[in-house]
Each structure stands twice: as C-alpha cells, then as structure tokens.
C-alpha cells in the first residue's frame, strides 16, 4: 500500500509544473482567453514533449505510460487553465484506444499522439452534441451516444459550429452528425469513457488546487480591521473546507487513475466516484475562492474566475456529479444483489 508517486512520475510532475509556470502564466492565459483562441505556441511545445501521446501505446507513437502519468499532466494543465486543446485531444485518443479496432488505432492514434491532429469528444443526443470542448479545432471527433455507442469521424464528416462557452480558455462547438456519419468504435466504450472521466477529474483536481493556493496566498496578504483576513475563522475555515473538498477529489481521482492501470474491475466504480467528487469540489472550491477574495474576486482582472468557469465546464463534462452518483448507486445495488444471491 503506497500512495506515493514513483520517481519517474514525480519527475514528469516537476517538469510539467516548471514548464507551465513559465509558459502558461496568468497574463498569457488571459490574453488568449480574451482573444478567444488557443495558445498554439504552447501547444506545439507540449507536442514536442510528447504530452498528447503520454498514455498512447508506443507502437502507435505514444509514450506508452499509464493513467497516472496522464492524470499528472491533466492536473498540472488544469491548475494553470492553459489555453491548449490537450484535454479534448486525449479524451478522443483514449476512446479510440479502448474502443477502436487495431486498424483504427493504426490509422488515428499516431497523429493524435504526436499532436499532428487534434481530437475532441462529444456526448450526443440524437446525433447532436452541444458544447464539445475543442470541437472547433478538432480534426478527429468521437461522438458517444447513449444506447447507440460511439463513432469516430473526421471534422469534415460532421457539421461543426463554434459555440463559445463561458470558459474562453478553450474553444467549444456544437457538433452534429448524420445517423450514418463516421465509423463505429466497436470496442470497450465504457472502459474508454471511464478513463476519460479520470482525465477530466484530474483536470478538476488541478483547478481546485490552484484555486485554493491563490486563495491562501491572497488571504494571507489582504488585511482588514488590522489583521490578515485569513486569520478570521470565517475565512480560514472556508479555506480548510476547500482543502477537504480538494483532497476528497484528489484521493478518489488518484484511486481511479490507479485502478485504470492496475485493477480495471474497480474502474467503473472508482471513475464514477472520482468524477462525482471532483465535479462537486470544482464547483464548491472555485466559488469559495471567489468569495474569499471578496470584491476583488468578482473582477475580471483577479483571474480567479477562469478557474470558476473551467470548473463549471468540467463539472458538466461527460456527466455531472448527480449522474455519476446514480451510476455509483447502481454499482452498490448490483454488488448487494450479487452478495445476496
């Protein structure tokens, strides 16, 4: 039983953190968000480092590492709300890797792993997916629809309309595809989706972590009635609560990332838990961050709102907390009946 990262993982984390501290500073994120476009330069750098392919098998041009390594990158990117289409791209490649055929792997994964092509993943209802993150820039789009499985298509095969969200650090689109559009992914869609959930949850953990750190730094400095506001229990206990929620998200997400690689039988339960915990934490912690900043937190310049907006998008992405708790309750009920019978 060991919760620590391996030395290699720690190295990945450190490198990512240092790179992003330099290359995804708040003012740069703001600049791209205000212009409503991705940070192409940063994206190219990440691609050169092989990030998009971190969890893709080596034979398909990836680094062949696991969910934990992917989770580390998602968390670091989330904490900077960097304006790059990393998450949508890995969501697409994750689905293709787990639900695609060997032929599809060979055809689609290398370009996604190298970053040569970008991906996006949408949840469709009757062929239409709203607010597909990264949808406007994607070359390869995976659409998942309840009861009718997943299919992959090129951007040309779908109708794509830009549909900006409240989080302008990433593009969003409305994607619709005719019933016979694209090609089916006939493998393990559920396994792919659960791994996708781990990636989104990891990003949310990063968002929470950053929101907490910004808040703690601010309330140590900001003084009111002669003392730092962070010494008032109304503020300090709020920060403690933020930490508790962040740690719940972090521990369940770490568990799910571990299960994805080491114990796939527990993955469905673990991923549902992680996404439920991370979605709730994302909403609560970033809202608390704004509140603890007071009036400043409500301003555009304070940069806390990017975290809040990202958290709102991610919390809804691939199903909100309620949805995953319902799944989880299903797992519990099943386990009970298996136990009884």
């Amino acid at each position, binding site marked *: 039983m060991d919760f620590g990262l391996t030395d290699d993982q720690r190295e990945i984390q450190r490198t990512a953190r240092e790179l992003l501290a330099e290359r995804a500073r708040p003012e740069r994120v703001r600049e791209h968000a205000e212009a409503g476009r991705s940070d192409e330069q940063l994206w190219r750098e990440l691609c050169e480092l092989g990030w998009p392919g971190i969890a893709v098998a080596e034979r398909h041009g990836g680094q062949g590492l696991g969910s934990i390594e992917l989770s580390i990158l998602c968390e670091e990117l989330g904490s900077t709300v960097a304006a790059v289409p990393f998450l949508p791209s890995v969501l697409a490649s994750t689905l293709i890797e787990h639900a695609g055929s060997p032929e599809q792997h060979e055809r689609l994964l290398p370009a996604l792993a190298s970053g040569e092509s970008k991906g996006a993943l949408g949840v469709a209802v009757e062929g239409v997916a709203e607010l597909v993150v990264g949808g406007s820039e994607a070359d390869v789009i995976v659409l998942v629809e309840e009861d009718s499985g997943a299919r992959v298509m090129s951007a040309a095969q779908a109708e794509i309309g830009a549909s900006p969200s409240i989080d302008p650090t990433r593009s969003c689109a409305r994607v619709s595809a005719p019933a016979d559009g694209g090609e089916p992914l006939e493998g393990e869609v559920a396994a792919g989706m659960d791994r996708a959930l781990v990636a989104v949850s990891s990003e949310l953990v990063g968002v929470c972590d950053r929101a907490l750190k910004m808040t703690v730094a601010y309330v140590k400095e900001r003084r009111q009635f*002669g003392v730092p506001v962070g010494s008032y229990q109304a503020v300090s206990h709020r920060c403690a609560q933020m930490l508790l929620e962040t740690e719940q998200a972090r521990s369940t997400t770490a568990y799910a990332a571990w299960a994805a690689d080491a114990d796939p039988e527990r993955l469905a339960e673990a991923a549902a838990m992680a996404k439920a915990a991370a979605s709730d934490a994302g909403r609560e912690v970033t809202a608390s961050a704004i509140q603890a900043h007071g009036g400043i937190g409500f301003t555009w310049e304070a940069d806390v709102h990017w975290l809040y907006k990202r958290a709102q998008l991610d919390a*809804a992405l691939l199903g909100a907390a309620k949805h995953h708790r319902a799944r989880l309750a299903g797992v519990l009920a099943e386990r009970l009946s298996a136990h009884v019978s």
Partner: protein
Amino acid sequence: MDLTFSEREAAFRDELRGWLEENPPDPKPENGDEAALSEWRRAWQRRLYDAGWAAPSWPTEYGGRGCTPTESAIYFEEIGRARVPLAANVLGLLLGGPTLMAWGTDEQKERYLPPILSGEEIWCQGFSEPEAGSDLAGLKTRAVKDGDEWVVNGQKVWTSGAQVSKWCMLVARTDTDVPKHKGLTYFLMDMEQDAVQVRPLRQITGEAEFNELFIEDARIPDANVVGGVGNGWQVALTTLMNERAGLGFALQIRLRQLLDDVIEAAERRGLLEDPLYADALADLHMRCESIRLLAWKGLSDVERYGQPGPEGSLVKWLWSETNQRLTQLSVDIVGTDVLKAGSDWSYELLRARGNTIEGGTTEVLKNIVAERVLGLPRLKVAA
C-alpha cells in the same frame, strides 16, 4: 396577523400594475454600451417621472407620493414583476434623496432633489475603497480645506454608474487626529471635473457594472458638505440604511421569476418527476417564500416600530445564497444553455457570484446578525 394586502394597498398595486402594462419601456438597445443603456434607462425614468412613478416613497412635498413602506415595497415588487429596468438614477432616488431629506440644508434640498427625481442628474456612491473593504472607519481618501473649498485626493471603488453621473456621494477623511470614524465628512462631489478619473472595473461577467474613481486634487465647494464637517459617519449610515430597504423586493421578485423559469424548464424536460430535482426545487421554492415572508415581516416592523431591525441582514443573506443555489442548479436542469457564452442563463450564473459579496459580504452579515440580533460579543483581534 394579516398576510393579505389592505384595500388601499391592493388598489395601489393594481394602479401601478395597470400603468406598467400600458407604458412599457422602449426595447432595450441591443449590444449597447454603458452609455446607451444608461440613456435608455434615463428615458424610462423620465416616463416614470412624468406619470409620478419615479419615487413614490418620497414625500409629496418633494414630488413623491408619500407612500407607506408597504406601498414602497409593492412598488419594487411590481417593477420586478414587470421586468422593466430600474430608473437610471436609482441611487439618487433610493439613497441620495432620502439622505438629503434627513441631513441636507433647505438650499441643498431645493437644488438637488428635483433633478434627482427627473433623472436629469445621475448620482453615484463613493464609499468603498480598495484598502478598506467592509471597514468604513478605515477610509483613506482625504479632503483638506482650502478657502471655501475642499481639495480631495484618494481612490474609490465599486462605484456603479460613475461614467454617467453628475454627483458623487463621497465620504472622505477631513480630520486624522480623532478616532477613525469621527474624522469623516460627507460631500457631494461634482463628477464633471478632470480631477476625477473613472476607470471601468470589469467583472467576471465581462461587463463593467462598477468603476474605480481616481481622485487627484478634486475640488468641492464647502456648500456641498452634507450634515456638517466631521459628521460623515452618521450621514453615511443613513445612506446605508436606505440601501437595501426597497431594492430587496425587486431582487426577490427576480429570484422568483428565475425559479419559475427553472421549474418550467424542469417540467419541459420531464425532470420535475425526478425526486432529486423535485426536492431541490421544492426547497428553493420554500426558501423563496421564506425570503418574501421575512422581507414583509421586516416591513411590518418598520411600520410598527419605525425602523428596520438588523434582521434585514437575514433576508439579504438568504436571498444571495438562494440565488447562487438556484443558478447552480440551473446548469443541471436547463442544460448547456447555461454554460454558453452570452446567454441570459449564463449571465445569471456568473452574476450570482457577486450576490454574497456586494452590499455586505455574507461574512459581514453573519457578524451583524451575531452581534446585533443575537447579542454575541464582538471579536476583538490583536494585530
């Protein structure tokens, strides 16, 4: 106990509701900037003014209708229900006018009240400062006497409508040798001078509802002191006491309307049959009703005892938290529209985050409730 309107109150409501139906404002200018929006609201105030509906709670001698507090609350409920905008000079009407009536000289009342009412001169409020936060006693903006004028230097923040305002209700420090809240003076500062620079303060919704004021050697004639030099704390309290009184009813109705919209969306999407959403919506309905009842209860106290109790803090606290819960829930019920840039729904979601901060943070309100309603000892901190 009688939770119905009296005949007189019902007649007042019906008259206003009828008038609002027959006199809708012009359509809101699309993609308008602050100035265009303000012009639109100014035109609307003019129409209210012409019909005698600009400030019904003002005494008849100043051009109002001498409404009771209940009628005044009905006024804002109906304004909210009709989904019409607030008058351009809402701060002058709600805060400036009543403050002048309480503390102004006859000359000041004569000079300032008529253009407040007509909307000819817009007012803004210069209390908050970047450093002081909720701590009025910590204000740093200074005013120094120079002949029969005052010279002002400092910085203000959270000033809404500053670009279009003629007058600013300014609280500045005029004496640094006395205890902190004693050295303050309340001024009317002319905004039309270069010494006052307005910088819009963009908020998380993207719009700039508020501004920062940079004041560098601004001049205020001595005649524009309100309530006497060194008495600014008292005068400001009058302004603050009036701040939440009426407006609360308009906000409460907006919450009600938003909740009704969410309930309708839930019904449309078949989610009202999901016990989880049914429970959450019923709870919000209960909260919304509590807010209404507590607000009216506060008004009963005003009518009975002459002044609102600190319980008003409960209404503001509950309202702001309920609005945040509701808009957060709307993401799950209404769906992706709420997360789309520029949608009305997304505006509500983002704007709601300010509710627990503006007009007294929830933390400050809880302090007030603890100290002034429950009589708990105030925390004394050591630096």
